[in-house]
C-alpha cells in the first residue's frame, strides 16, 4: 500500500469530528421532525439525560473519583476531570453565588459546535442543549438534583459559552422497605 496511515490509535480516544458531525446530523434531524425550537431543546435535553445516566458509570469506573463532599469539589471534578476526559477541554469554574450553591462553567471552545452556524430562523435553538441533559442525568445518579442551563452561547453571538449550574437538593437514597 502506498498510502501510510499515521493516525494515532490511543485506546479510548477517537476522532472528535465523528462525534461533532453525528451530533450535527441529530440536531438537523430533530429540527426537521419538530415544529419549533423549544421542542428540539427539550428533546436534546432528554437524550442528554439518558446519556448522562449511563455515562456516570463509565466515568466513575474509569476515573477513580470518589464521592464529592461539597458542590465546589463537584464543580472541580466536572470541569477538570469529566470535561477533559470526554470532550478534551477544561472549562473554567467561575461566578460562584455567595451561598456556594451556584456556579458557571465557561467553555473557551465547544467541540459540539465546531462546524456550526445557526440560521436566523432558529434563534431560540439551544444547539448544545444535550450537554445540560448529560450533566443533569449524571449528577442525579450521584444523588444530586441540579438545574443546568445555558446562560450564554457563542453560537448566538455571546462572547463565551457559559453553562450555569444550580444545586437544588441532595436526593435521599431510597432504602428498601423494612430496612430502617
Amino acid at each position, binding site marked *: 500500500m502506498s*498510502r501510510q496511515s499515521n493516525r494515532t490509535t490511543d485506546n*479510548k480516544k477517537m476522532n472528535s469530528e465523528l462525534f461533532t*458531525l453525528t451530533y450535527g446530523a441529530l440536531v438537523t434531524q430533530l429540527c426537521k421532525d419538530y415544529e419549533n425550537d423549544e421542542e428540539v431543546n427539550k428533546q436534546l435535553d432528554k437524550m442528554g439525560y439518558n446519556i448522562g445516566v449511563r455515562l456516570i458509570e463509565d466515568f466513575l469506573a474509569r476515573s477513580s473519583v470518589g464521592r464529592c463532599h461539597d458542590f465546589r469539589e463537584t464543580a472541580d471534578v466536572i470541569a477538570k476531570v469529566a470535561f477533559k476526559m470526554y470532550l478534551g477541554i477544561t472549562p473554567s469554574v467561575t461566578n460562584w453565588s455567595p451561598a456556594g450553591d451556584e456556579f458557571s462553567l465557561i467553555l473557551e471552545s465547544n467541540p459540539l459546535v465546531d462546524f456550526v452556524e445557526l440560521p436566523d430562523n432558529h434563534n431560540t435553538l439551544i444547539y448544545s442543549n444535550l450537554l445540560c441533559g448529560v450533566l443533569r442525568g449524571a449528577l442525579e445518579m450521584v444523588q444530586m438534583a441540579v438545574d443546568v442551563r445555558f446562560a450564554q452561547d457563542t453560537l448566538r453571538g455571546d462572547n463565551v459559552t457559559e453553562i450555569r449550574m444550580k444545586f437544588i437538593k441532595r436526593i435521599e437514597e431510597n432504602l428498601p422497605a423494612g430496612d430502617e
Partner: protein
Amino acid sequence: MADEALFQFLHNELIQYVNNAESGENENGRCVSKLENMGFRVGQGLIERFTKDTARFKDELDVMKFICKDFWTCVFKKQIDNLRTNHQGIYVLQDNKFRLLTQLSAGKQYLEHAPKYLAFTCGLVRGGLYNLGVKSIVTAEVSVMPACKFQVMIQKI
C-alpha cells in the same frame, strides 16, 4: 479529542429516538433509512476532512482501500479485516469485531436488533464514497455478532 464512549452513547440515543419516532407500519424500514441518511451526511463531512492531505486516488479499488484502511481506522480505530470484490462493482467489507456491536452481544442474542446498529455506518460509507465520486448502495449483514459484513454495490453512471 472526544472520548469513544460519548459517541457510542450518542449513537444509541440516535437509534432509540428514531425508533420511537417511527412507530407503526413498516416502521423498521423507515427507521433504518432515517439512520442511514444521517450517516450519509456525516460520511460526506468526514471524508472531506480526512482526504484533505491525501494524494489523488488512482481508481475505484484505491478508493475502497482508503475506506477500509484510513477511514475505518479513523472512525472505528481498526482496519477492515477482509476486503473482497468480484471486480464488477461489488465489494464486501468484513469486520470481525465491529465496534458498535461489541458492547451488544457476542453471539446470536439480540440478532434481530443488529440492523439498527449498522444502518448509520452503512450511510457513513455511502456518504464517504459519494463525496469521492462513487455512487453506491451499501447494505450490511450479520450472522454472528460482533462480526459483520458490509456490501457495497457500485452504481455505474
